């Protein structure tokens, strides 16, 4: 049953082969592998990619221009030639929705990135410095919070004047407050972690500690907040355009399209359906992705 060989002592080589080494995985590869498991998040990501491709390529490939009027097709329902139908001026809605996607996505991303930049720097300084400086900086955030965001976006729009550029600016400078608060909380938490203390013991400079140790560890939470702030910005832009403070015709953002179609929505429902649907699907997709990201970044949270 047994050979004498079985009872030979293990040589060092045999011992080493018994050692199994798993392939190295970086933090982000790990996050990605967990994110892939989450069906809703993958679905959200796929939808976002699809919307981006749609925004980039549909206007190029379509034979219609977004502002090309043809009164023969005025208020046509969806057909083989005009997939989403036409508006009252006979403009092709498919192209206009795609064009709207460009504007809405651009507003969403650029406004979020402006708020990301301001929020990370502001929150980072506030959390890292602490004490009096933190106190003052956070009271400013409180004041911004205490005014309902919409009122103050509208006020800014009235002052700066409607248009795409002013939407970027107003959204950017009004959306950073939650980001700043979140970054501050993260920085405060990470600041007291032992690896930061270890860096201080080594003699590392404050900027090295902030940029090499604290910020990289806060990026996960920043990314989640960013994913949730994009749909917020898209929605705000749609709302502003809807009430006439955003971009104006013939430019087409999703909000403008909705606004144009509302008066006749009982008669030509598709004119409202497609842009409104695009807004809903995109916002939902970002929320799915954000939820998935949050879980993937913090596996403990899932249970």
């Amino acid at each position, binding site marked *: 049953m047994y050979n004498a060989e079985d009872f030979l002592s*293990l040589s060092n080589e*045999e011992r080493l082969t018994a050692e199994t080494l798993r392939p190295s995985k970086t933090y982000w590869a790990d996050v990605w592998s967990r994110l892939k498991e989450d069906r809703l998040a993958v679905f959200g990501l796929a939808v976002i990619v699809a919307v981006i491709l749609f925004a980039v390529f549909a206007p190029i490939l379509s034979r219609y221009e977004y502002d090309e009027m043809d009164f023969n097709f005025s208020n046509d329902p969806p057909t083989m030639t005009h997939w989403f139908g036409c508006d009252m001026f006979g403009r092709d809605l498919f192209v206009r929705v795609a064009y709207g996607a460009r504007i809405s996505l651009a507003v969403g991303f650029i406004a979020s990135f402006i708020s990301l930049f301001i929020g990370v720097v502001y929150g980072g300084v506030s959390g890292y410095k602490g004490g009096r400086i933190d106190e003052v900086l956070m009271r400013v955030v409180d004041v911004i919070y205490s005014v309902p965001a919409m009122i103050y976006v509208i006020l800014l729009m009235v002052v700066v004047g409607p248009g795409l550029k002013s939407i970027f600016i107003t959204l950017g400078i009004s959306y950073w407050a939650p980001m700043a608060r979140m970054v501050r909380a993260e920085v405060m938490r990470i600041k007291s972690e032992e690896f930061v203390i270890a860096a201080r013991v080594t003699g590392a400079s404050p900027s090295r500690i902030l940029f090499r140790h604290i910020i990289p560890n806060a990026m996960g939470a920043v990314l989640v907040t960013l994913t949730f702030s994009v749909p917020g910005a898209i929605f705000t832009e749609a709302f502003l355009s809807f009430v006439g403070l955003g971009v104006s015709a013939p430019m087409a953002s999703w909000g403008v399209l909705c606004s144009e179609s509302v008066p006749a929505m009982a008669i030509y429902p598709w004119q409202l359906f497609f842009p409104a649907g695009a807004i809903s699907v995109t916002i939902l997709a970002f929320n799915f992705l954000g939820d998935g990201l949050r879980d993937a970044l913090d596996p403990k949270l899932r249970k």
Partner: protein
Amino acid sequence: MMTEEILRVENLRTTFTTSAGEVKAVEGVSFTVNRGEVLGIAGESGSGKSATMLSIMGLLGDAGRISYDSLSFMGENLTPESVKSIRGDKIAMIFQDPMTSLNPVLSVGYQLEEALRRHKWQGNIHGRVAEMMTRVGIVPADERMRQYPHEFSGGQRQRLMIAMSILCSPELLIADEPTTALDVTVQAQILGLLREIRKDTGMSMILITHDLGVIAGESDRVIVMYGGRIMEEGTSREIFGSPSHPYTRGLLHSLPKADGKRERLIPIEGQPPDLLNPPEGCPFVKRCNEAMRICLRRKPEALTLSETHKYSCWKGAEESC
């Protein structure tokens, strides 16, 4: 004294499904607990000592699956349903962190009374809770029952948990690292308290800990676990007096000498077991300095040294083959 078996576990297996793969936390563990005795389960992180107890108590949650040949408590088979009524009643548990078992927004008196009501206690509920709190040294009981968990120190919270666990006069107390979070002087108090309660009530105890000193001081019999399996089992004297498994010996050698002789420690080399990729044979093979070729491929059978002393190692099986 007649030994009466109160808990019997045969061939328990527990598997967890994680995103990284299947983890065999417990692999074929069998043991018994007799009335009035203290069974110590020693093991390091990943040894499966806590998973064993959670499996028996049906507290694993969704991710874990268990199987066994037999599982009985006081002669009756334990099923996932029946264990629910026994839990907290005939079998009680205390954990390392008492805070997780106490609700921070309810007074401790209310929580202890609730525990009694849940088990349909007949008689004066308030009186029983006050009696048990006094028993564990939380006085004046009436006043302290109105307090909330955060008003108690770590040691007092563990006392509270002990009071809660003995409310229904359990036959068996499972203590999972009950003093790991406590300082040595408080640890001595808590262990002393548990000893007194056992003397008064004759309850049995399973003491799970990584601290060999605590095991040596409190246990009648000891099980040493590694990588989900029992490596060695015996009376306290057998395990500490004549350790037979290379792992048990290694553990004892890695501790500083009790008499203070400053000899170099002899550590167990290598790293704790990787539960995702367990070796085919003995889980300890990679770190064992007596490992042989067969240890890589086949799991050793248990060898009997005395009625109470068993260990699983090919080194001893060698002669008999």
